[in-house]
């Protein structure tokens, strides 16, 4: 039997392995692998004194394993999309975001089903798919970018214990940062369910719809907030630029709240006479509560950051 006719098991096996190999070294690796397997077949034939049958060759090849696995061995360890350092955080973020958003979507579906409330696209199964794509996309993109920034700047190698923030003065813990990433991404995805015109007219309240205006300001704030939370995973130390950015991001929502409270909603109310007045009064209360919360959080950031600066200054002056 000629082992190397086009349809021999070995030829077919090598051809299959070839398809998974990197183009540059494909022929070279395939030739070498074929030569090595051929050596083994020759040796077995010499030992037994007879040609190997196809069935025996197939059995031998099965010991080498699936062509994909064989080819993978030649690819080396390579680079993974999310490295082992980041993977546990990435996995937790994805699972948490998907779970929370699924729970919210199911809740909305239940409201739609039991109370016959029209909540538009949310009730469609397609919304689940859209939500999952958004979450996986945002989270994966965020982690890849964060990892890239860390590696590019050699952040982990240039880190020094002296730069670590005291526990009480750190911006957050790493897991706190993960929680924030999950919360902001999930919130952004939920806000995206609102059928909203992304325009300057909505942004400055000229449409008269206070809900849409506040949602748009929130979305803008979240876009600034999410990268900050990703950065927080690996760096929890306060700096002036971080404090400024953090306060600036809070001011975005503060501005949104002020625009929402001061806008003329008369036209909108007239267009939807069925909407209860209590809805607007509750909304106004919530927006005012937002303003109070934003001011308090700015003060807390300021206090924590300045205490951290004072602490590092005293440590520096204590050093000989």
């Amino acid at each position, binding site marked *: 039997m000629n082992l190397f006719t086009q349809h021999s098991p070995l030829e077919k096996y090598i051809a299959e392995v070839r398809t998974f190999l990197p183009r540059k070294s494909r022929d070279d*690796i395939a*030739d*070498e*692998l074929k*030569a*090595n397997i*051929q*050596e*083994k077949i*020759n*040796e077995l034939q010499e030992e037994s004194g007879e040609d190997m049958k196809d069935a025996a060759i197939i059995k031998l090849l099965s010991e*080498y*394993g699936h062509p994909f*696995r*064989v080819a993978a*061995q*030649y690819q*080396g360890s390579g680079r993974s999309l999310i490295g082992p350092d980041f993977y546990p955080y990435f996995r937790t973020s994805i699972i948490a975001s998907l779970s929370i958003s699924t729970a919210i979507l199911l809740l909305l579906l239940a409201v739609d089903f039991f109370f016959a409330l029209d909540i538009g696209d949310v009730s469609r199964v397609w919304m689940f798919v859209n939500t999952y794509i958004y979450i996986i996309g945002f989270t994966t993109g965020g982690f890849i970018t964060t990892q890239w920034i860390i590696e590019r700047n050699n952040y982990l190698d240039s880190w020094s214990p002296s730069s670590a923030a005291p526990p009480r003065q750190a911006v957050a813990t790493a897991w706190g940062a993960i929680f924030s990433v999950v919360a902001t991404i999930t919130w952004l995805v939920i806000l995206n369910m609102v059928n909203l015109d992304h325009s300057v007219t909505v942004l400055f309240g000229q449409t008269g719809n206070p809900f849409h205006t506040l949602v748009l300001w929130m979305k803008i704030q979240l876009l600034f907030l999410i990268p900050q939370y990703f950065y927080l995973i690996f760096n929890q130390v306060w700096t002036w630029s971080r404090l400024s950015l953090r306060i600036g991001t809070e001011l975005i929502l503060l501005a949104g709240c002020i625009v929402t409270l001061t806008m003329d909603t008369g036209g909108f109310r007239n267009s939807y006479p069925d909407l209860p007045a209590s809805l607007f009064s509750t909304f106004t209360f919530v927006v005012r509560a937002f303003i109070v919360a934003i001011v308090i959080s700015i003060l807390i950031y300021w206090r924590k950051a300045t205490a951290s600066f004072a602490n590092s200054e005293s440590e520096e002056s204590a050093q000989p």
Partner: protein
Amino acid sequence: MSEKLEAMRLELRRGILILAVLTALREEQYGYSLRKALQLVNIDIEEGTLYPLVRRLESYGLLNSRWSSEEGRKRRYYQISQRGEEILAVLRSDWEQLNRSILSIAEVRA
């Protein structure tokens, strides 16, 4: 436990694999003969691990290779390079040091 033990043994062997391959390739060998040579000294490495490792060491410049056709058989021969010899010397020294350290720990325990 046997699975974990097997994983630990595999990890331990993986660490010395490069040392074994570089040492064996002080004499020119092709893939299959290298595997046989290692098997003779009770180092049994799966082909799926050995052949890619040899290519990797070559890509690091630690091995030289050449294709040869003998009696109608195509073979790719590998042999340690000058750079490989330098690396091997360092690895061997580390290995001997580790061996001494492990033995001294065992002696202290005894």
